[in-house]
């Protein structure tokens, strides 16, 4: 999942920069995307060192609305949602489900019904499970499942194979 998100970020950078004559006009969004990739890399490196505080702080910066200035709505939402998903996972790994739940729910308020939202729903479900709110977790997992099912249908359609 994390790989797919990183790929989406990388390809978003390409998409933002490919129309060469418009490059200068897009420099602000390119800078935002570059900052995002650097923040993810810094968070990865901090996590590799076991430095949760630094990882958390880099991801928190990224999750702030100001960090995605200049980006189109969908890209900005995806970047923030991805950062909040990683924060939720980080808190789950640190055995702090209440904080994880907060990050997941914050991410879900950004809207959308895509891969990023599905990730947040799964984190939300895991946090709820650990808090003993298992029936709520079921609903969260089920919503994530439905999003993935729709994405599967789209992938099959895109591959020219009609669902049975």
């Amino acid at each position, binding site marked *: 999942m994390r790989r797919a998100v*990183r*790929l989406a970020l990388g390809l978003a950078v390409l998409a933002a920069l490919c129309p060469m004559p418009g490059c200068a006009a897009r420099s602000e969004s390119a800078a935002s995307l570059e900052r995002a990739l650097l923040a993810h890399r810094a968070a990865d490196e901090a996590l590799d060192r076991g430095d949760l505080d630094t990882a958390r702080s880099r991801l928190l910066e990224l999750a702030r609305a100001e960090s995605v200035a200049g980006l189109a709505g969908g890209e900005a939402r995806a970047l923030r949602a991805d950062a909040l998903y990683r924060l939720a996972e980080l808190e789950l790994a640190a055995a702090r489900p209440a904080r994880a739940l907060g990050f997941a729910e914050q991410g879900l308020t950004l809207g959308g019904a895509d891969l990023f939202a599905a990730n947040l729903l799964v984190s939300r479900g895991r946090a709820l499970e650990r808090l003993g709110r298992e029936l709520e977790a079921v609903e969260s997992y089920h919503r994530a*499942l439905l999003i993935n099912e729709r994405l599967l249908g789209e992938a*099959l359609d895109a591959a020219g194979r009609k669902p049975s």
Partner: protein
Amino acid sequence: MRSIATVVLALALSTCASPLAMEQRGSPHLQPADEAELQGLLREQAGLEQQVEARLRADPTEAPGSEPDCLEICALVRRICELADRICRIAERHPEALERCQDSRARCARARDRSTGPCACRPS
């Protein structure tokens, strides 16, 4: 994958540098040499995208020789079925969730069926 994203980013930014620099010089039109350079950079960028795709297709978790789309399709099927498993584990303790469990299991089975023809997804 970190490195792929980084390389993609670096190359993307490097392709940006050329026209940016031209704008700073106040040159509104591309000269033939610039066009050739741009074409080269675009070809390089296209090559990188192909490399990214190739790396993804070479994911060892998938069956050898699988179609490019199968990577995504199999990942989605696995995710659907993992979520169904999670739901059903909870339903073992909470009968109220049994309906959700049955629905999710059915969706997992349907996802597997739909992907069986085009892709040889490994069981999760």
